[in-house]
């Protein structure tokens, strides 16, 4: 079925897009395949890696990072950065959990509150960044601290436990045999891909990131684009916060510490340039998968978690280095 659509669209040049994408991302796709094949045949992991249970497990583990990375891809293509997402996870998580456990509100209300927390902080980021020339790095560094601080103030530093059983559905539940976070992740990925590739807003994001001044001449409402992207990133973080709080039965003020860095890593490994103006959500997906599988594989191999960080760092460096070599070649 999928093949047929590709073939049909071929006349309009769609196959080209797929071929071009594979060509441009040869490095990370190869890395992804090598990693997967290695884990499938390596004696210590071959028994456990390629099982349906483990694969869904990996997907569930990367789901929150993938949500953040969706927003982060847009932010970075825009030429900015969003450091506040990790803290939004905590604030959205504790407030949503608080709604249920402290105020006895229905779960749906808690979900709305969680997403709203993300939206509000994202909108604030977007407002400041689009109306002033303060660098996004500074603005989101500030909101990162504010959100983290508020989460600690609200909880007094200890987790907000939720005992309601239905609470776990979002983070730990299943529909059939598919974990709920994975379903959410797939829906969000589809929406993100549509926005970036199929809408005017998507084009405008690339344009503003590529050359903000030219975008002004083009009549693109630059501040609206910045506003939208940061709000989107905030909402993604709000949703990730709910998923995490649900999976851990509690809203934790320390949740999502350093999560912004993992999201940035996924985006950068996926080939999006920090300079802005170029990048693809497809790359980010592969980037997040590589990081997720790496973590999973190292766990299966019983590698010490301190060493896992080292390996992750090396992989990021390697991925960016491949990109660098490829780019310097194509320039000459």
């Amino acid at each position, binding site marked *: 079925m999928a093949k047929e659509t590709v073939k049909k669209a071929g*006349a309009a040049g769609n196959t080209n897009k797929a071929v071009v994408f594979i060509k441009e991302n040869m490095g990370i796709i190869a890395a992804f395949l090598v990693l997967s094949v290695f884990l499938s045949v390596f004696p210590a992991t071959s028994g456990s890696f390629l099982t349906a249970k483990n694969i869904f497990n990996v997907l569930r583990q990367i789901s929150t990072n993938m949500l953040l990375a969706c927003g982060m891809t847009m932010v970075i293509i825009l030429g900015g950065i969003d450091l506040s997402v990790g803290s939004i996870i905590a604030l959205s998580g504790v407030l949503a959990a608080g709604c249920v456990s402290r105020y006895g509100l229905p779960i749906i209300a808690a979900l709305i509150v969680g997403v709203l927390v993300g939206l509000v902080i994202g909108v604030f980021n977007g407002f400041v960044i689009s109306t002033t020339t303060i660098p996004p790095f500074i603005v989101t560094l500030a909101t990162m601290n504010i959100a983290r601080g508020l989460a600690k103030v609200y909880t007094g530093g200890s987790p907000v436990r939720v005992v309601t059983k239905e609470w776990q559905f979002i983070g730990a539940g299943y529909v059939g045999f598919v974990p709920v976070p994975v379903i959410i992740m797939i829906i969000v990925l589809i929406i993100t891909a549509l926005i970036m*590739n*199929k*809408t005017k807003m998507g*084009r405008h994001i690339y344009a503003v990131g*590529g050359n903000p001044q*030219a975008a002004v*001449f083009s009549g*693109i*409402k630059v501040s609206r684009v910045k506003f939208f992207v940061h709000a989107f990133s905030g909402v993604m973080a709000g949703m990730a916060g709910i998923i995490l709080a649900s999976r851990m039965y509690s809203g934790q003020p320390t949740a999502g510490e350093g999560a912004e860095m993992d999201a940035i890593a996924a985006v950068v490994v996926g080939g999006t340039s920090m300079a802005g103006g170029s990048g693809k959500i497809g790359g980010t997906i592969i980037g997040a998968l590589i990081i997720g599988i790496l973590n999973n594989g190292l766990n299966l191999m019983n590698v010490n978690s301190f060493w896992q960080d080292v390996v992750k760092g090396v992989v990021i460096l390697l991925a960016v280095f491949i990109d660098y070599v490829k780019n310097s070649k194509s320039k000459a």
Partner: protein
Amino acid sequence: MLKMKHIHKRFPGVYALNDVSYELRAGEVHALLGENGAGKSTLIKVLGGIYSADEGEIYIDGKKVEINGVKDAQNNGIAIIHQELVLVPHMTVAENIFLGREQGQGILIDHRKMTEEAQRLLDAHEMNIKADALIKDLTIAQQQMVEIVKAISYNSRILVMDEPTSSISDKEVAFLFKTMRGLTAKGVGIVYISHKMSELEEICDRVTIMRDGQYVGTEVVKETTKDDLIAMMVGRELTNYYTRDYLEPGEIVLKCENISDGKMVKNAGFEIHKGEIVGFAGLVGAGRSETMKCIFGLTKGSQGDVYVKRNKVNISNPVDAIKHGLALVPEDRKLEGLYKVQSVRFNSTIEILERFIRGVSVDDRKEIEITQKYIDMMATKTPTQEQMIGNLSGGNQQKVMISRWLATNPDILILDEPTRGVDVGAKSEIYAIMNQLVKEGMAIIMISSELPEIINMSDRIYVMSEGRVTGCLDHDEATQESIMQLAAN
């Protein structure tokens, strides 16, 4: 003094220099002429030690030298002034001149001594620049002067100037030429790269022409004609460099009165007829681009009345301007126009997304069709529509920029320096397209600092000076002198 013999340089897929030779005598200005992509820049980079040649020899004062790096070039007295100036904006003039060889003792810098020394050098060349001024506060022309002084301070005897006049006014050009003559009188040899033919006669002694990476010939400027040089450059006779059929202009399509922005533009007013090319001449800083920016809704707080086809309109942003049938191809392609890392197609269609994007569905076929239509119309040379626009030559980039705005189907097309950094062949093609467009009923406003271009292409010429329109000349009464008189008004 300098001889480059049989230089070869290959890049993957490109034979950038194929057996090129060049020689420079002490005290002469020797122009290097060729279209974009002819290999001028590559040759200069070989001389400056940025690239090393695959084959060939370089002699200085009859001695064979090896240039394997920028330091080698400096040691051999070669200095290059690049088209894009490479000064540090937040440092002073003196600090820039002595960058990398700061004066002082040990690790301490003697600022006073450096400033005094720099000031002495500046004064010696009658440059009205303070050594303790910050680079970012200087004009482009002044920055160029600083570059020249910096080069001289290295005791350079071979000076390479890459399009030094591309972004400075005529008055500043005159001063630059005076400085150059002062240098040649002291025995400095100058390699001069420029697209402007008129400058060759004024400042250059000899000219070497390159085409497609090959050496075409060397001529004494006084013994040759402009047409001969152009023919050598493009490898064919350009029978009609400027294409223009003057027609009876139609009704007024745009009328502007009392345009002001509070700074550069002061009560500018003019009117444009259908089927007309109207030139805007003036010195750099006369407020021409700024006037157009006001009309296009790019300047906040600008004032004045704009009438499109007799109706008063209110344009507060570019979206309004586009709606009223205006299009503006900006002056600085890199800064204000190109989405450099994106494809030719992306760059062509960014203004007209609503024609093929509905909600979340993109009609790829339609987008490809539109892009192709303009590639064909403009004869843009690009391998594919997916080609990154940053990889095209300046002329082809400009063609895509014009395509982008033509795609909006404007009634009034504003071209700000449409041929800056564009090679001769592409220039001529752009002129022909402009002629065709006005024949079809468009009105074109062309801002240009190249007087021959303005004189040969315009129906009428408005001249601006210090934010005011100081006069309007018909094309048959316009001469370089009459325009300059109004421009200096």
